[in-house]
């Protein structure tokens, strides 16, 4: 599964907005972790859940 997600650019852009400083020695590892998360997210986001289903643990049915 190929991805156009530029994890390094994303980290560089978003970390300051979260008041997070990514040390140079961590940048690659953080980006790799994000790439893995992005693959998981694509699996989940590709499934359309009915609009009536609210975020939560399902207790609301």
């Amino acid at each position, binding site marked *: 599964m190929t991805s156009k997600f530029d994890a390094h650019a994303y980290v560089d852009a978003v970390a300051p907005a979260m008041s997070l400083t990514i040390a140079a020695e961590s940048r690659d590892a953080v980006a790799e*972790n994000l790439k893995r998360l992005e693959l998981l*997210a694509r699996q989940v986001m590709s499934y359309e859940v009915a609009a009536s289903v609210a975020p939560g643990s*399902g207790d609301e049915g």
Partner: protein
Amino acid sequence: MSDPLSAAATARDIAVCVQRGEASACEVVEAALTRIATLDGRVHAFTQVAHDRALRRAEAVDRAVRGGHSPGPLAGVPFGVKAMIDVRGIVTTAGSALHLADAPASADAEVVRRLEAAGAICVGALNMDEFGMGGTTESSCHGATRNPHDLARTPGGSSGGSAAAVAAGMVPLALGGDALGSIRLPASLCGVYGLRPTRGSVSNEGVLGAGGTIATVGPLARNVRDIAASHAVLTGGADRAPVAGILRQVAIAAGYFDDNLGIDAAAAVDLVRRALDTQRMVEFPDAARAKAAAILVNASETATIHLADLRARPQRFHPGTRDRFLAHALMPAQWYLHAQRYRAWHKQRVLQLFADVDVVVMPATPCVAPLLGQSTLVVRGEEWPTGPMLGWFTQPLAGTDCPSLAVPIARAGRPPIGIQLLAAPNREEMLFDVATRLESLGVAAAPVATLP
């Protein structure tokens, strides 16, 4: 009845003997402390041992017995807690250097209060992967824990210290924490029972880093009766003795859960299938996607908990943990929100399966414990990163809130491995009944490890 002072003593037998005055709580705790002192230099399950606190509480239990009062259903039972659970007088490190210099906890976590109100006695804190972020108990600032059945191997994680302490017979009972498998995975690799209770049924108050919608605290022990008894105390429910003879509708998980099993895992599931004489198969919907959703939810929630420290003192984290948390903290909110919505939908689909099935059997881990430091493992000829593969079967249904019990399969002379039993929420009695039947048939067993 087991000797209450021995490593093989069950929690229930200890409680009965102490209540009858056949053994004192002080004797039981001193025996446990001696075993810890003797064995833990090799296993490294405990991060802190609370000698004075334990003996004071044991004296209180003994005073109650002498006064004709019942200390409770777990009278005199020594237990340990995962190092993320507050115990008054002990520093709650959660396996992280970030908390080594903290002041000791000023109060017990709710789960500790409940167990001690039932007469049990906390003897110390147990090692874990830093903040629960691991499956091998190797990222702890306290150093790695070793598997008592083979000291060259990992006990699994992140509740590796809890599983190892019980497997080695240091204590008959321990508490762990499980979001995506951190009780069930080490229980399987150490050959003990580990319960992930219905999420929300056990308090997370006083548990560091437990905020979120996935994780729960649960017990580990070497027999089903002790798991059931401690579960009753933790939840305030009735302590019903499990019944092996009750016919429960059991099915075997197919599809996702029938793939990527190594030889030992496949043999374990097949043994249980034959013992329970069930041919019925069920397939959980969308297991791979459900796993992805559970991982995303847990990732975002755990990063939120540690955000302040990630900003202020990132260098104090284990580097691997830090870099994962940083990535988790940067996740777009829509990933998390959609994962939670998908989770809600998926849970309802899973609950429909339990309309005519009581318990589902599935593998717990794909293989036996890998070596410490082993970064990859081979399953069915394919090489995988160790951490993600060990959690292969414990992660997909973590978002459904269903209770799951890791059950050790009797394998004399071979490395331990367990299976999982899954039931609908708040139906733990189904798990206990089926596990008890496996125990009575000799299919499930958790003998004390023999250390070299």
